[in-house]
């Protein structure tokens, strides 16, 4: 079952002579539970695609369906609530609140839902799972990059979202920590039955994912049938038809 669908998506920035076509006729389907990597060169449009998937940006043309709902038809408020409940974000620069300690950073998105109680048991479980329970009273500034990214992952998982969107989550990490973080993402994907769409530059990391989506000049490259590298478990390419 497809949890995320991009249908004829176009995204244009600017106007007239300054116009930049970031995405062009993107058609893509992501299955539930899939761990997909989006790779491409700088400026190819991969972060734009991720932002559109998360409802952080709106497409110039086309439809995006998340869990079967077209997010473009939602009001601003509905979209916000939908995003809060269904989508988690992990950013390259962690994007933690510097004034909250680890525990509160993780609990923060849950508190946006009025009347919803923070499931402290779940947060504890998450923090333990990610190996940062002992650091729960620390502030982001007191943590290493890897630890901060774990906190960011925990925060993204706090609302048990169906989809996790990660934009270069290992971009600021060393190789050992990168492996740890990817392992954690994969583990959470399995454990919580989540779909992960991850933007990365790192080919090696991409190869560890279930699927690789390559974007160049705002377009998804065709599936390279018959040219799959035997050592890579990942399936490459995008869907042509929506």
């Amino acid at each position: 079952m497809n949890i995320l669908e991009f249908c004829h998506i176009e995204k244009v920035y600017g106007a007239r002579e300054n116009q930049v076509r970031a995405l062009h006729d993107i058609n893509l389907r992501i299955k539930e539970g899939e761990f997909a990597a989006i790779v491409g060169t700088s400026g190819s449009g991969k972060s734009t695609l991720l932002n559109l998937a998360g409802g952080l940006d709106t497409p110039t043309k086309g439809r995006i369906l998340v869990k079967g709902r077209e997010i473009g038809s939602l009001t601003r408020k509905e979209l916000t609530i939908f995003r809060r409940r269904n989508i988690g974000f992990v950013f390259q620069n962690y994007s933690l609140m510097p004034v909250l300690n680890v525990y509160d950073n993780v609990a923060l998105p849950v508190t946006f839902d009025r009347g919803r109680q923070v499931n402290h048991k779940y947060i504890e479980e998450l923090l333990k799972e990610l190996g940062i329970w002992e650091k729960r009273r620390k502030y982001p500034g007191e943590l290493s990059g890897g630890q901060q990214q774990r906190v960011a992952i925990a925060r993204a998982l706090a609302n048990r979202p169906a989809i996790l969107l990660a934009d270069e989550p290992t971009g600021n990490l060393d190789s050992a920590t990168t492996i740890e973080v990817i392992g954690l993402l994969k583990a959470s994907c399995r454990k919580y039955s989540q779909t992960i769409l991850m933007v990365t530059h790192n080919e090696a990391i991409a190869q560890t994912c279930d699927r690789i989506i390559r974007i160049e000049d705002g377009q998804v490259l065709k599936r390279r049938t018959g040219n799959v590298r035997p050592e890579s478990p990942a399936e490459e390419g995008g869907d042509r038809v929506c």
Partner: protein
Amino acid sequence: MLKLAFQYMRYYKSQTFAIFSSILLTAALMSGISSLMYSSQKNDVENSRAVYGDWHYCIVSEPETVTDLDTDAAEAKAAQEETGTGFRLEQCAKAQMVGELTEPYQIRFLHVDDAYREMLHREIIEGREPEAADEIAADNYTLVNLGFRGDVGDTLKLGKDSYTLTGIVKSKWTSGADEMEIFVGDGFSGAKNSGQKIYLKFNEDKKLYKQLEEFQKEYRIPGDAVEANEGLTMHLGGERPDSIYEIVKFALTDERGNLTYVILKLQSDYNLTFYGMIVLLWMFSMFVIYSVFSISVSKRKAEYAMLQTLGISEEAIGGTLVLELWLLFLAGYPLGCLLGNGLLKVGYQRLRGVFTHKVIGGGKTAVSITDRIAAQGSADWANVSKESPALDNAAQGSAASGIFASSGFSVAWGVIFAGFAALFLALAAAGFLTVRAMRKYTLRETMMGEVSFFRGRRRVYSRRGANLANVVVRKFMFLNKRRAIGILLSLSVGSCIFLCTTYLVENLKVHAEMSLKSDDGLGSEYRMFVKSDSLADTIPASAVEEMKKIPGLSQMYATKYTLGELTIGKEQLAWETYFDEVNKDSYFAGHYGGICVDKGDETFGIRYGVYGYDAGMLNELSDFLLEGEIQVKALEEGNKVIAVANMDGQGNYDFYGIHPGDMVTVRVPKKQNCPPEVLKFDSEASDYVEKELEVAAIVSRPLAREDNFLCINGWEGSNTQSIIMTHQQMEENFGITDYSIVNAAPVSGADKEEISRRLLLAVGDVPKAVFRDYAAAIEAQKNYLGQQQLFFTGIAAVLLVISMFHIMNSMNYSILARRREYGIIRAMGITDGGFYRMILWTGILYGILADVLISFTYHLALRSVMDYYMTHVVQFLHLTAGIPAGVFAMVMVMNVVIAAAAVMIPARKIAAGDIAVEIGG
């Protein structure tokens, strides 16, 4: 550097505009208020010149010396104008007393020169100068008193001789206008040796006291021969000021010295109010400009750090910042001065009375010559009105406006230039200090932008059910403590000033009302009293009864009066030095043997006015209560009295250490028509009635009072020494049945002219009775209060606008600086409503914190300072008024509203932005 500064100014347009606006607004405020105060002070000088005469010093000299001095002085003037050193005499006048009359009034015959007429404003306004031996000129006041009903050219009999009136002299403004003068010509054959005076006017651009010293040295004139025109010279530095070191040393080393002494001394010698206000305004201006500038710089610190990595020195960056500030300052400051002065010049006509110290109702203004002598009967009064309209109209008109002469609006160039220089240098210091502050962080940290490393309490807020969004906002708010304090101060400053001015104005109203009550008696429009040096002259009870029948009067208070002596023990007299000075007064020495006389038996006898008030007046007197209780029944049953305390120069009250319940001994002449010697209180004991009376209450001021200790020629003092009892007690204790003072007020909308006429008729037959109309004075007082209220509210509003500008700028930056974090929060799923609530909470929190700060600052500090200022420095009578609860609540609510509005503007900007851009940015 200049190019770089320009480029930054062009790129950061909104911040450049913010700095420019802060300079413009603060320059407008500082220069405008300085000019207003300066104009008012100049106005004061001009008023004083009109009231007290256009002369600085008077030399009482022997006749021969006068002639020499006059000539020499004129020569000296010419000489000094050339050299520019020593004294520069602008004008010199001579007056010679050539005769005197004591009956029916004290009248002096003067022979004066043209310069005298000009300097003392005694020009001939009708007719010509007297020349022949039997020719005279006089002012309307004197002529009215003498019962003259003729015209110029008619004959007037003075004593045994008859004179032809050749001219009408312009009347005096001063309280000394009670003095009656007749002007004679060269042919007058009086005693030319009886006393002469030389009036000197020096160049006011130089220090007057130094010129006087030089003048005295030049002509070997002893100090005791010099009298200063204090009414005028007090504004121009007529006395050598003590050095600040001496003032402070005295305050620290002498037991009489204290803070109040320092403040009052600095006020009198160094114009503390003016310069203090300028310093405060300057500090406020610097605070706002620096704060706005800091915010602007904090946005581009990373760029400066980058420039440093490229090899630009710290000094060059500092230079760029200073150049930027200076360029904006050079453009903003003159424009601000133009704006502030321009606006105030337009509104000056409405505000010019604000800093003018001539408050009508003080008993020392032109009002005193609006006296309408009723001694000659109503028919005469009618004549006076017709024959001398100029006198009455001028006095009334001036009294109504509260100003006698206007020097117009003057720009305080000195302050503007000094402010320019001080701000110019301070901005340079601010620029370099900002760069220096960047040293706290490494270039890498500065380039990264977020240099704060948060390490707060380890509390887990989500476990306590706290709203984490609010926690985030609150913590962001206080992450930069300096900025938070700056915003809170901005919010508080305007409000605190507004509250303080409201408190001041409210108490000023009370003070003005009480002053009027105590000065003219109950703030009544009409006052009838007896201008006589004899206690036997009174307003009969029958006349008072007649007055009570006049329709249209809302109140009528009659007062009984006699002169008494209060006996106190030597050890109780704390003011011996003061009384020693007053005892030297020739009037007191001559009439009463002094005001405070050593009786030789370890006691002092002090001259006191003894009054009998009616129940209504005693009720009004309660407003002035310092100690004890005022109850008519208790006063009469226990034969108790109310005493008026003495007030020292610092606003402290004391009644010789006597308190309610203590006994005082009062003596009054047994007969009201006693010989003058009896009033010295050293005649036979049988000439007096002596009473031992219990003090029931002590008050700060009397209401109706006999101002001059029966001195009909006017006395430069204020007689508040009073013992008060009821009418009945006055009769029972001293046998006094008639009245000396009657106050009356019309009902609203009554025909005041008709009431005046009827009152005059009622006292028309009473010898030496005088009718005084305070209607114009009361109107002027209201007008003056209105101006003050308008001004202070205006200033508070301007400060509020500047504060708001600063708040908006600070809040805007404070919130927009966190737009990435807010973007993340929005990405995590906070709705627009939730986001607005979260930001609004910041504003509300700022507002509430500012309210708390204001409340504490106002109640714990500012109010005490204001109370001190009002009690000891400006010496308000009673601080009974507080800030109305509604005004206080309005200020509190307004703070929250302003803060909330200030945060919502950037919040809307953020919410309208693209989340992806916010996060990416």
